[in-house]
């Protein structure tokens, strides 16, 4: 059909010619548009290979997990998730002694040491006004019905942010300490990290030490 049309157009070098070819072009454009959409759809789906039942989490993919156990006191176990860009997310490891208390963690207070960590205002690319912390600088105090425990930085660097959502929702620590319940984000200098790393253990070592099957 289309081939015939083209021949007609070629044989009539009059003004009709232009109208015919314009219509043909329009039709072709519409068809092309549908083709493009179909092509897009097939591209979107073609990429989906065998999907695992449970894919790795964003944390597992983007961060390397480190742990520190019995930090300054027995049972004070914390995690340090380090991103490829050098930033470290700090939080309570599952075996932290606070989780053993009945009712879990009920309160968190960032006003420890010399200042309230939750009011720091870090600004700009250069992270002005960030608090410089040592590994044993206190971050916050978590309280259970029974007792309260100091959580420390574990990493020497600039404190970029603390998770102030925990103030109103301390139960996040109980439900997902390794994600929404993170405590702080710290940016260490490369040299400081290299030294710091030596006192940390890997996920495998942590599991073995605590004889857990995670």
């Amino acid at each position, binding site marked *: 059909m289309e081939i015939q049309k083209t021949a007609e157009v070629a044989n009539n070098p009059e003004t009709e010619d232009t109208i015919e070819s314009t219509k043909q072009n329009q039709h072709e454009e519409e068809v092309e548009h549908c083709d493009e959409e179909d092509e*897009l759809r097939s*591209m*979107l*789906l073609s*990429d*989906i290979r065998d*999907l695992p*039942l*449970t*894919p*790795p*989490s*964003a*944390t597992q993919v*983007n961060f390397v997990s480190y742990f520190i156990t019995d930090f300054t006191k027995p049972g004070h176990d914390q995690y340090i998730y380090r*991103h*490829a*860009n*050098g*930033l470290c*997310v700090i939080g309570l490891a599952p075996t932290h002694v606070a989780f053993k208390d009945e009712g879990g963690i009920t309160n968190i207070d960032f006003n420890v040491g010399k200042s309230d960590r939750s009011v720091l205002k*870090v*600004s*700009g*690319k250069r*992270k002005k006004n960030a608090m410089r912390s040592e590994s044993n600088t206190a971050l916050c105090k978590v309280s259970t019905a029974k007792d309260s425990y100091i959580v420390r930085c574990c990493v020497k660097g600039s404190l*970029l*942010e603390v*998770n102030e*959502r925990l103030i109103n929702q301390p139960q*996040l620590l109980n439900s997902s300490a390794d*994600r*929404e319940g*993170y405590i702080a*984000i710290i*940016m260490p200098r490369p040299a400081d990290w290299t030294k710091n790393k030596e006192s940390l253990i890997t996920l495998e070592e942590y599991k073995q030490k605590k004889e857990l099957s995670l």
Partner: protein
Amino acid sequence: MSDETKPSAGDSSGLSNGLVSDSDRRVYQAAQSLHSSSVKDLLSLGVCERCVFRLVSVEPFDSDLSSVSASTLRSWLEEASAAAAASSESSCSRVCIVCLGVLQFVFSDAKQTLARSECGSDYAARVTELVKREGHEFDSFGLEVSVPSTVVENERAVLLYLKGKYETEGWVQSEKISVKDALKVLVLDPLKASLGAKSDSSSFHIRLTYSMTSDEVQDASETTHERKKRKTDEENGSTSMSENSFEKVYEPCILSVNCNKMPIFFSGRYFKYSRNVSQTRWIIDDERMGEASVEELIGGNILPACLGDSYKFHAAGREDIDVRMLGSGRPFLIEVQNSRKCPSQQSLMEIEEKINNSEKKLVGVKDLKFIGSQCWAMMREGEAEKQKQYAALVWIARPLEEKDINSISSLIELKILQKTPVRVLHRRSPLERERTIHWMKVEKIKGSSHYFLLHLCTQAGTYIKEFVHGDLGRTSPSMGSILGCRAEIIQLDVTDVKMGDS
């Protein structure tokens, strides 16, 4: 009285045989009208003929002077001023103490070979040859001249001397054309003829740079001490300028001819089919991230076709290395520095085909074309205000239900707050950014109740991955918080970058 000119003493170049052009006649007459004792004075100091005209004449410096040879000019000046006719050999070959040979059409090239031209057209021919070596295609050019600072200092010294010695004369006070501008006047028309091009403030520039040989520069330029002394002397009205100040003998300058074309631009839309190709060249610690880059795959093909020096890649927005760019493609510009030729539309189409039909199919291009000054307006269209459309492969911790599909589709113009994602927090300001998700649509995937395809249209600047997995709760609401369970993003594709017109 009559228009006929007298034959010059001892030198028959051009005049006495009657074949005199109007311009030559004008120059001859101008020579006659110059103040004779100052001409004699300057010639004996070692100032060249064209500089004498420039400094002493009241008439504007004219391109007529270009076609008259230096030796002819000299003989006319000597005749007019009754100066001793120094043997033309030695006087002409001495480098002018003011212009250092620039206006004498004397220079040495990069290989230290001396070049001497008698007239403007010969000089233009030499320059043309050097320009042609650069290989540019052009039909108009802008001429730029640069001379060593010593020339400016010499000029100042000579003017001071003249003002001191001939201060009562009228011609002394008039504005003198600079050596730079004088060269342009002499050389522009012959260059236009020799290059076959027009002259205008075009996108193609020819720069004639005169510089002194390195050992000369040391002696010649003023020290700070000398400059201070000179300035105070000028202020006090005293001049220490005497004929003895002009004793230095100079070497001719080195001339280098540089051609530069303003950048040209090509526009188009690109597709990225690979999840291992970054948008721009990305190298960390000497190692390349990803297999290739969009920038190099496109720019690397356009640059050789333009015979340019280098290129820059600009895109209307960006996507991560593991995100595909599908749909209508993302607008981009390639800027080429100092191109020697502009590829035809046909060549551009061939480049487009070459990229699209390449074996690996990492990147695709469409609508590749040459674009003019409106290119930046076009780019801004694709940037901040526009909407972007994506398709994300999402996994959730519990099975997807019909009500989820409905609740997601019903969210129109959803406002979310995103704290700067952890993955970019090291290089961006810690801010909380409000963004809008315009609409969302869930597409079920056959055979899976935990995976689905999420189509969404969002405001420019929205971090999609963080919207899905929540970024440790720092993006809210997120896919996970809306569905009440853990959500992860497996893959992301950009399916549309909306621009104003298309």
